[in-house]
């Protein structure tokens, strides 16, 4: 028999890799978030709860609230834009659906940094939108869009839209069309059918899409950096600054823990909604 069989080799390799690059690093964040800061070595092995207390500081709180606001509006915008798109495409032929989905995915495979940069060309004072509106005599003077919250909303929505469309698409595609027909036969109008049949059935897709948009939007620091002119601070920018500018690793870690907590809550809601839906369907 071979000493090193494929079985033990493969299991050992997978385990060692995942322990070093997933378990260890996550442990580090957790531990460092309870340690004190050190000017030279970044961390001092002294246990403290100060980092979490600092998070309750009004300055940080206002950043969190602003960040949650930007991310929530982005998520809502993505949902409002995507839902009609997905409902309309669900009526198309299979081939057409494939092509449309591919068209949605292609930008998602392109560097999001380059696409964010492309938005500058469009939004700036002498950019495409303003030039177009002025030449059509809709406005007289260029609008200031770049370096405002509106630009950040546009940037985040633009980057994250595919993350909303894809899960929605999957869940709308899975709807049993007979249920919709049954609703029509029973006299439900279009709005009633949408409200009582389609939306509840696609709820897991809606929530999955919201999680996939909301979470990355909290961390994508370069979009507010580029489009918001660093004026709109997001949790992502805050973490980045703690690690690269003010060098406060413990505080940065505790903010990351907060971010993971948000992730946990969102996943829990997703899981619950799936359970509820399964219960409704089987009942």
């Amino acid at each position, binding site marked *: 028999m071979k000493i090193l069989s494929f079985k033990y080799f493969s299991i050992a390799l997978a385990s060692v890799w995942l322990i070093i690059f997933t378990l260890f690093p996550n442990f580090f964040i957790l531990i460092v978030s309870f340690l004190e800061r050190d000017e030279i070595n970044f961390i001092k092995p002294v246990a403290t709860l100060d980092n979490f207390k600092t998070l309750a500081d009004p300055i940080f709180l206002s950043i969190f609230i602003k960040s949650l606001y930007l991310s929530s509006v982005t998520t809502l915008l993505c949902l409002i834009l995507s839902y009609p798109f997905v409902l309309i495409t669900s009526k198309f032929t299979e081939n057409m659906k494939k092509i449309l989905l*591919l068209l949605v995915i292609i930008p998602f495979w392109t560097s999001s940094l380059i696409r964010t940069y492309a938005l500058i060309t469009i939004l700036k004072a002498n950019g495409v939108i303003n030039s177009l509106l002025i030449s059509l005599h809709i406005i007289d003077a260029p609008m200031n869009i770049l370096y405002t919250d509106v630009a950040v909303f546009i940037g985040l929505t633009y980057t994250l839209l595919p993350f909303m469309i894809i899960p929605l698409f999957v869940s709308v595609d899975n709807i049993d069309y007979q249920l919709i027909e049954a609703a029509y036969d029973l006299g439900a109008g279009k709005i009633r059918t949408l409200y009582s049949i389609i939306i509840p059935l696609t709820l897991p897709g809606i929530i999955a899409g919201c999680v996939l948009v909301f979470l990355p939007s909290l961390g994508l620091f370069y979009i507010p*950096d580029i489009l918001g002119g660093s004026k709109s601070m997001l949790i992502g920018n805050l973490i980045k600054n703690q690690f690269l500018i003010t060098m406060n690793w413990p505080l940065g870690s505790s903010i990351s823990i907060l971010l993971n907590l948000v992730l946990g809550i969102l996943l829990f809601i997703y899981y619950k909604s799936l359970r509820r839906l399964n219960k409704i369907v089987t009942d």
Partner: protein
Amino acid sequence: MKTTSLKIFYIFFILLFLYIPIITLIIYSFNDATYSTVWSGFTLKWYRHLAENDQLINAALNSLIVAILSSTIAVFLGTITSVALYRYSFYWKKFLYYLIFIVLMSPDIVMGISWLMLFSFFNLDLGFLTLLLSHIAFSFPFVAIVIYSRLRGLDKYIVEAAYDLGAGDFIIFRYIIFPSILPAVITSWLLSFTLSMDDVLVSFFVAGPTFDILPLRIYSMVKLGVKPDINALSAIIFLFTIIIVVITQLISWDKKRG
């Protein structure tokens, strides 16, 4: 019908929203004006500028090297991991699933800082090696998931029949499992490649000051001010991406048919 045309219009509106920025970039990469958005005639000078920009070309080559190496290693690790998860049972198997799931779900920025702390704990200088390791680490779960779902579609009896006929683990892997997961292997390699080429959030923390890669170079160029060289570069990158996406789609459509 009126509502139908409204619906078609809406689909076009969303697609326009997704594509106008990219199309604008490509058009402006041929525009003979430095700062103005007014069309001043066709030119290829930005592409010439780009060809002379050694810094940018160097960063692009570094990115390519990291992307090719990291996706190859990630595919190797991911394939072995998913085969192990598929074939064998061991009592911490569930735990490995959870760890893969954690990397899949963690926000990029959290992974970036966690690896930064990992490397500083092991006293590794930030640079090529740390960048490569992190890119492998964030591509790896995607590879594992893609290949694992392909493996689940594999007929278990074929593997059992091979066992009965006396084939060892390696022979089974080489002649049965590997050929049947090959499309998934190629797809996941391409996925890892694009993930690596696009990544900003993780690289930002683990690249260090000496090793220059394309996304970070573009980031600093964008922060300093818009130059049409970037338009030319973006147009080239976009073309590359489309080719890769089309190849991937052809492979996956072929897989579904077969």
